[in-house]
C-alpha cells in the first residue's frame, strides 16, 4: 500500500506526448519533484511525498519513456529543453505560478535549465546528486567511447554501460547500475525497487534517450567526458541563477562524484549540504535526513 495517495491524478499532453502527473496536499507553497533519467519513474520520490505533502503542495510527474507517460522513441523528445517545457506544462496544467523545483541526477540538468530559462516560475532550486559535467569521474571516464561499440564477454563493471549490452542483458545492466547508485551497504530494497521501475521501460526507450540531440550546454548521456564547451555552458547557467539554491550531494556518490556538488554550489552561490557516506540517491537511502534538510530549505523560502 502506498503511504499517501495522490489527491489529483492527471495527464498533460505536450508536443505530442502524454505525461502522467500527480498532485498531493494543498499547502500554499508548491514543490515540483522533477523526473530523472527515464530508467526510473516518479516513484523514486516515494520517501518524500508523504512528508512534504503534509505541509506543501507536491507535484510529481513521469518524464517521457516511463511510468504513466508515453514510451517515446523519438530522440528529439528527450532533449533537456523538452524536459524544461514539460515541467512548465505541468505547472501550467496545475495552475501553479511558482514552485520550488527539486531535481536529482539528470533532474539537476532539467531543474537548472528550468530555473535559468523561467526564473519567474522557480522560487528555489534543489540539486541532488546533480548530473553536471563539472568534475571528472574517474570510474566512468571510458563510457562515452565505448557506449556505441560492440561489447566483449565477459562484460564487467562499467563495461556494461553499453548500448548493445543493454539490449542483450537489460536486467543485468540495471542491477549493476543501481548497485552503483546505492553504494551504501544493506541497500537491497532500494535496489529491488529501482530494478522493478527500470523494468517498466525498455532498452529501446533508453537508446532513444541516449541519442537525444546535444545542444550547447546540455551535455548528453553518451558524452560524459567534460568538453570545455559543456563545462562553460553549465557554469554560465548555474552562475546566472537568481533563486536560492540548495545542493545536496553524497560524498560516496559513484554516479556523479561529490566534486560536482561542490562545484555546482560554488557556481550557484548555493548552500551545500554534504552527506558523508551517502551515495547517489540519498533521498532513498537516507530519507529522514534528506527530508529534514529539504524541509529546512523550504521553510526558509516560505512566503
Amino acid at each position: 500500500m502506498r503511504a499517501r495517495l495522490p489527491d489529483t491524478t492527471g495527464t498533460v499532453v505536450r508536443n505530442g506526448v502524454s505525461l502522467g502527473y500527480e498532485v498531493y496536499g494543498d499547502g500554499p507553497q508548491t514543490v515540483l519533484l522533477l523526473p530523472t533519467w527515464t530508467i526510473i519513474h516518479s516513484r523514486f520520490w516515494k520517501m518524500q511525498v508523504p512528508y512534504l505533502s503534509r505541509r506543501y503542495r507536491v507535484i510529481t510527474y513521469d518524464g517521457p519513456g516511463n511510468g504513466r507517460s508515453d514510451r517515446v522513441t523519438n530522440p528529439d523528445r528527450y532533449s533537456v529543453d523538452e524536459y524544461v517545457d514539460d515541467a512548465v506544462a505541468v505547472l501550467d496544467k496545475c495552475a501553479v505560478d511558482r514552485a520550488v523545483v527539486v531535481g536529482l541526477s539528470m533532474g539537476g540538468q532539467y531543474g537548472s535549465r528550468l530555473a535559468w530559462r523561467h526564473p519567474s516560475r522557480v522560487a528555489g532550486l534543489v540539486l541532488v546528486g546533480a548530473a553536471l559535467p563539472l568534475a571528472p569521474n574517474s570510474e566512468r571516464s571510458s563510457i562515452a567511447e565505448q557506449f556505441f561499440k560492440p561489447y566483449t564477454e565477459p562484460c564487467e563493471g562499467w563495461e556494461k554501460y553499453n548500448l548493445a549490452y543493454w539490449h542483450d542483458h537489460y536486467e543485468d545492466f540495471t542491477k549493476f547500475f543501481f548497485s552503483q547508485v546505492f553504494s551504501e551497504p544493506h541497500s537491497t530494497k532500494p535496489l529491488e525497487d529501482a530494478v522493478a521501475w527500470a523494468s517498466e521501460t525498455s532498452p529501446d526507450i533508453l537508446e532513444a534517450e541516449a541519442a537525444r540531440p546535444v545542444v550547447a550546454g546540455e551535455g548528453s548521456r553518451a558524452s560524459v567526458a567534460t568538453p570545455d564547451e559543456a563545462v562553460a555552458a553549465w557554469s554560465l547557467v548555474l552562475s546566472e541563477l537568481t533563486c536560492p539554491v540548495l545542493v545536496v550531494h553524497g560524498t560516496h556518490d559513484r554516479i556523479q562524484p561529490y566534486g560536482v556538488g561542490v562545484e555546482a554550489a560554488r557556481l550557484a552561490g548555493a548552500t551545500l549540504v554534504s552527506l558523508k557516506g551517502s551515495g547517489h540517491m540519498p533521498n532513498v537511502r537516507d530519507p529522514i535526513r534528506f527530508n529534514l534538510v529539504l524541509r529546512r530549505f523550504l521553510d526558509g523560502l516560505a512566503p
Partner: protein
Amino acid sequence: MRASIPHEAGTVDRDGADIYYEVHGSGQTTLFLVPPAPITHSKIFKAQVPYLARHFRVVAMDARGNGRSGQPTEKEKHTRAENVADMLAVMDVTETTQAVLVGHCHANWWCVEFAARHRDRVTGLVAIEPGVPYIGPVQQHWKDTAPNWEAELDDPQGWALNNRHVYLTEHRRWIEWFFGQQLIEAHSTKQFEDAVEWALESTGAVLVAGEEGIEVEAPSKEDFEKVVAAIDYPVAVIHGELDICQCVERGRQFAERVGGELHILEGAGHLALARDPVKVNQIIKEFVDRLSGARMNSHTWTRGMNRRKKVLYLSSPIGLGHVRRDLAIAQELKRLQPEIEIDWLTQHPVTPVLEAEGERVHPASEWLASESGHFSDESHGHDLHCFQALRSMDEILVANFMVFQEVVEEGLYDLVIGDEAWDVDHFWHENPELKRGEHAWMTDFVGFLPMPDGGDHEAYLTADYNAEMIEHIERFPRIRDKAIFVGNNDDVIPEVFGDGLPKIRDWTEAHFEFSGYVTGFTPPTSEESASLRDELGFAEDEKVCIVTVGGSGIGQSLLEKAIAAFPIAKRTIPELRMIAVAGPRIDPASLTSHPGLEVHGYVDRLYRHLSVCDLAVVQGGLTTTMELAAAKRPFLYFPLSRHFEQNYHVRHRLDQYGAGRYMEYASTDPDALAAAMVAELARRIDYRDVETDGALRAAKLISELI
C-alpha cells in the same frame, strides 16, 4: 561576573534624563532589548544577551526610572512619548538604523508606538508577555485594585498592595508581593532575588510616576485599533501560560490581531525569559533567523553507520581540580575502546593542561564565559561562599549551556561526559527534549549544605536546590544515563538534603554508582620517592614544606599567613625549607620574602612535588588534599570559610582516610600555624590507602554507554 561584557556602553542625555545603553556582539541584524521600567532594567535580559550576542548585534537599554538611567519622579516624565523618544535616542546614538525590537510586558506598548512613529527603524518585534491596551482581558486582581489606587487603605494585604501609598511607603513590600506572585514556577529563589534587587534600584516614587505616566494621553480604543491594524512587520509573541501580570489571552489575541507567531510556554509564568531562558532564547533566535532571511548554512551530515564513536568531555574549570582525574579517566576509556574520539569542551585553566597532553579541545571552548574567573571574583581573602557563587553564576551557566547545546547538536556525539558540568545536567532536565547522546554525570559530592552563618534562609535555599535536583532526576531518569560518584559509599556525607528531604547517603546509593577516588596519578614507591626528591633537589636532611593555594587566584591570604609562620617554625626545626607556590594568578613578587623561603609561580606537575614533601599547607580543595592523602604526606588544610564543599564534604572524606589535619583559617595566627606545622611534621602517618583503580572503574562504567 557577567557572562557578556558590552563592548560599548554609555548614556544619552534625553531632555535632562540620562538613558543608559549597552551594545554586545556584532552582525548585520540588531536586536534592541527594551525592558519594562521602572520595575526592572536591562539585567532582566541577562540570560538572553550572551547567547543572542554570539549571533547578532544586541543593544540593550535601561528605560527611564531604573538601572543606570535617570529616575525622574514626575509622571509627565514617564509618558509613552518619553519612552519612545528614549528608544529613538538609543538607536541613534548606537547608530542602529534598523532593529528587531524585543520587549517585555508593557514595554511592548512602547515598542508598538515606536514602530508606529518610526516604521523604517523596525524590522520585527519579539513581544514577550506583551501588555498593550484594549487587547485581551485584564486580570481580576488588576481590575479589583485599580479603583483603590489613590485610596489610603487600612492594613492592605495581597493584591491590595497595588496602591499608590503602598508604593510610596512600603515599596519593598509591594515588590516582594508582586514578584512572589509572578514566579509561580517552583525553585525560583534566584530569579526572585534578582527581580526584587533590580526593582529596588528604583524607588516607590518613581514607580508611581511610571504607573501614572504610561496612562497619560492614553489613546482611544479606536485610535489604538488603527495602530495595531497598521502593524505590517513580523511579530513573534512568547507568553507564559500562567502569567499573572499579563494574562496569556492578551498575548494570544495580540498575535492573532497582527498575524504573528504565537509561542505559549505551558507551566511558565511572567518571567519565562528568566525561568525558561533556554527555550526563550531559541524561539528568539529562530524568529530572527527567519525574518532576516538567514538561509540554511552549508554543512555536512554523516550517515549514522559511517560515524566514529565520539565523546564530548566537559571538565569543570573551577580551580584546576578535575583535569588530572578527567585525563586519567579519558586515557582508561581510550584503552578500553581505542576507536573512540574525545573532544573537550572546557576553558582556562583546564585548556592548556589538555593541550599539553595532546588532547583535542573543541574550538567552541573559546566562546565559554569564564567560570573560574567568576569564582575568583566571588572570593575575598580566605572566603568563598561557594553555594552563592554557584547561584550567582546563573547567567554564565545559561550562556555556556547555549554554547554546549550548539556543539552537541552539530557534533553528533555518542556520549557526553560531564564532570560536574552543572549547566548541562540542569538545563537538560529543564529542557529534556534537547538531550543528545548518552550522558554520564560525575561528581565528587552530592548535596548543597548551608553554612551556619547563613541561618535559616540559607538552609531553605540549599534545601530548595537539593529538592529541585531530586525532582529533576525522579521526573526524568533518562537524562542521566549513568551517574558516577567519584569516591566510595562512606565518602558520602551522613546528612540530609534538607527538611523533609531524604538522607543524602541513602539517596546517593540509590541513584549513583561508585568509582572510588580518582587521583590521576600513582603515588611513588619509597625507592621512587628517594630519586624524585633527588631530582627535585630536596636534600635528605631538610624538611620541605610546600604551601600551595591551587590555580584559582584565591588564597593569597593563606600564603601570607604560612609565610609569616615560617620563621617561627624554623626556630624549632632549623632544617625546615618552605616552597610557596603562588599559582598562575598571584604575582610571586607581591609576597613577603624570608631567608630560606622560595616562591614560585606555576609549578608543572605539582603533584610530584607534593608526593615527596615532608609537610604541606593547603586549602581544603579535594584534589590537592587527596593527592597528599594518597602519597601519605603530613598536611594541614584550611577550608575556605563558607565553602560548604571544603568544610563538610572534603573534610568528611579525608576523615575516612584519617588524612591531614583540619585547620580553621580565622582562628589560626602565625604562631598557632607554626606550632601545628611542627606537630604535624612529627606525626606518624597511618592513613588508609587511597584506591588507585578509580580511573579504570569510572571508565568501565562510562564505557557501558558507548
